[in-house]
């Protein structure tokens, strides 16, 4: 399977965010903490759940707990996709 790109994540994040909190994900958002991007812990869970469904992964709680920035998510998902390739 192809890699999980920052653009893929951005698409999922924009779908997760509602109008009130729609964040500015232009520029370098990858290294910014989710909290600064107005994504609370439930929103991060929602992102992880979308990724689970789309990429047929099982993401354990502990892995989600360690996803503090978008880059953590991209790195985790690519690691899992490589393992299952």
């Amino acid at each position: 399977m192809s890699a999980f790109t920052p653009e893929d994540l951005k698409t999922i994040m924009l779908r997760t965010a509602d109008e009130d909190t729609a964040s500015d994900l232009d520029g370098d958002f990858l290294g910014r903490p989710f909290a600064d991007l107005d994504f609370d812990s439930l929103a991060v869970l929602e992102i992880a759940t979308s990724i689970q469904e789309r990429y047929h992964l099982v993401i354990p709680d502990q892995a989600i707990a360690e996803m503090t920035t978008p880059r953590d998510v991209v790195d985790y998902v690519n690691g899992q996709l490589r393992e299952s390739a």
Partner: protein
Amino acid sequence: MTPAAREEKPVTGSLSVPDKARHSRILGLGVYRPERVVSSAELAPRLGLDEAWILKRSGVRNRRFASPEETLAMMAEAAAGKALAAAGVTAWDVGCVIVATTSHLTQMPSLASQVGHVLGAGRAAAFDILAACAGFPYAVALASDMVRSGTAGHVLAIGAERMTDIVEPTDAGTAFLFADGAGAVVVGPSDTPGIGPVAWGSDGSRADAVGMTGYWDPVLREDASLPWPRLSMQGWRVYRWATTELAPVARQAIDAAGLTPSDIDVFLPHQANMLIIDALAGQIGFGEGVIVARDIQNSGNTSSASIPLALDHLLATGQVKSGMTALAIGFGSGVVYAAQVIEIP
């Protein structure tokens, strides 16, 4: 005892128990809501939160915080007294008092023994149970089995909490959610089944989802600068668990009662969070007309008191009536969970 000695001692009798198996039901409900109403608009600024965020992520508009006079015992006694009156049962006829509580800040004596004493339940056994936000269905399950087996004639099952005593008031993750109150039911004998078999369990591997920050360690006495243990929750872990694991438990309880989800008139989930309530209500497969308790809007999360408080609200506002079939499900720290079908008193 050696085999030889066993042969020498004659058998003098065999144990017998009276066969009293019968049905059980909830005969009466009573609640206590603290006087003081605290709105999310009032709490939000001091927690650095938006009121809109609190509403969107929890559904809580208002909650009740107990005053110093509204002690855990006072609230439990008030709720239990009303439940006895509603059931038409005197305290003297209560065979056992069970209090489910997570916020009774002493090891002994139990809250149940004190509540029983004040009410005049002079013949009752009494004990507390700790099953966090699943406490009420746990207590009802125990009460029902006691009545059915003849261990007790009538049982008071009480959920009582002063969550504000164990919540850190500046914790933006919990302080807007948890609140205070008490609810009680009298469980007694019945000609027909009024409480279905419990579906319950636990999963200690999820202990970090919600719990306390530490123990009441003696070192706290020696160093006054150390923080007291407080409630700590990773709400998303609770949400994930509840919305992936609990619908099958609910269906198991319904099946054990010989019903299907479409037979359920009223859904009484622990009032944890509106998002969990809505997700569960959608997953279980109820009929379209099912009435869903959403007392969390005005009561917050009162842990073991939330289910009776929610039922009281539905009855008081005429949304449900006596005789309807409800599914109660509680879930919380442990994690632990319990569900059963009940006939509304």
